[in-house]
């Protein structure tokens, strides 16, 4: 005969929560606990699971072109806003070119810029600088392009990326920049397409 145990609350011998049911919400464990799926076991989701997988993903771009080297890139940022775009989670915030993460975690960050010049620039590069103390920034990613003189407008791009382990959103930050040998080089910007854009994806909790 099948036995049925009816209870809303199961606790360990010390009174700590193991399983609790309240108003159709079931809570397993408590903050600080580790819930282990044993080897060989399967955790399957046949409904809706929130908080799993990618919880933060965002993309921003520069709307207006500029000439010369700039870092941090302080102005003319916009979150991508075409019909096919949507962010996941809270999203990034930026102030004076310095980017703040919405929550702690391990993030993948990508920064791309397109350059144009009628002339020659030996280099045109993008870079990402990070800080762990909200003060001292160090260049952590860089990618070079160059444009030869072909007596007409020519283009190149730089794209660099990094992981940043955000353990403190008040102190772990970054900024983006461009640097060009020929100061007449333009970094392109556009409000309808990603000529120069930054991508942020939270991969996991902070490590």
């Amino acid at each position, binding site marked *: 005969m099948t036995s049925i145990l009816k209870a809303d609350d199961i606790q360990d011998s010390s009174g700590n929560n193991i399983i609790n049911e309240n108003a159709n919400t079931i809570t397993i464990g408590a903050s600080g606990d580790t819930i282990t799926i044993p080897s060989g076991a399967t955790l399957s989701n046949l409904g809706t699971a929130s908080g799993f997988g990618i919880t933060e993903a965002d993309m921003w771009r520069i*709307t*207006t*072109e*500029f*000439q*010369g*080297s*700039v870092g941090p*890139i*302080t*102005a*003319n940022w*916009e979150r991508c806003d075409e019909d096919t775009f949507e962010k996941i989670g809270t999203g990034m915030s930026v102030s004076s070119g310095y980017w703040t993460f919405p929550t702690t975690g391990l993030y993948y960050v990508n920064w791309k810029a397109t350059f*144009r010049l*009628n002339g020659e620039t030996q280099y045109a590069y993008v870079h990402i600088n990070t800080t762990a103390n909200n003060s001292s920034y160090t260049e952590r990613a860089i990618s070079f392009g160059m444009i*030869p*003189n*072909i*007596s*007409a*407008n020519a283009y190149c791009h730089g794209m660099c990326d990094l992981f940043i382990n955000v353990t403190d959103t008040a102190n772990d930050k970054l900024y983006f920049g461009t640097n060009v040998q020929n*100061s*007449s080089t*333009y970094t392109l910007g556009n*409000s*309808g397409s990603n000529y120069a854009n930054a991508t942020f994806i939270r991969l996991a909790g902070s490590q």
Partner: protein
Amino acid sequence: MDINGRPNHIEDYLAQLHLGQWFGWSDSKNKMYVNLIIHDDSKSKPTEQECTDGLATMQSDFDTKKTNNANNRTSGKAKLKTGEALTDAEVEALFG
């Protein structure tokens, strides 16, 4: 600016006035003069007429340069066939 580099918007004129991100748009979907904003207080805001005239000059310069380049390529090729000396402009048009 179109894909060939011909200026086609006052942003092309503004971007070459000063280095850096000295200007932007209050509505980046409507890049009209009325929406022009200046980020750098050390830079003055050009008038709408200056923007319009500046763009027209850039377009004229671009077209003239393109025409001259095409002419120099044509004349340069002809001189190469006959062994005549090339001008500097023809050398640049042919070989960069």
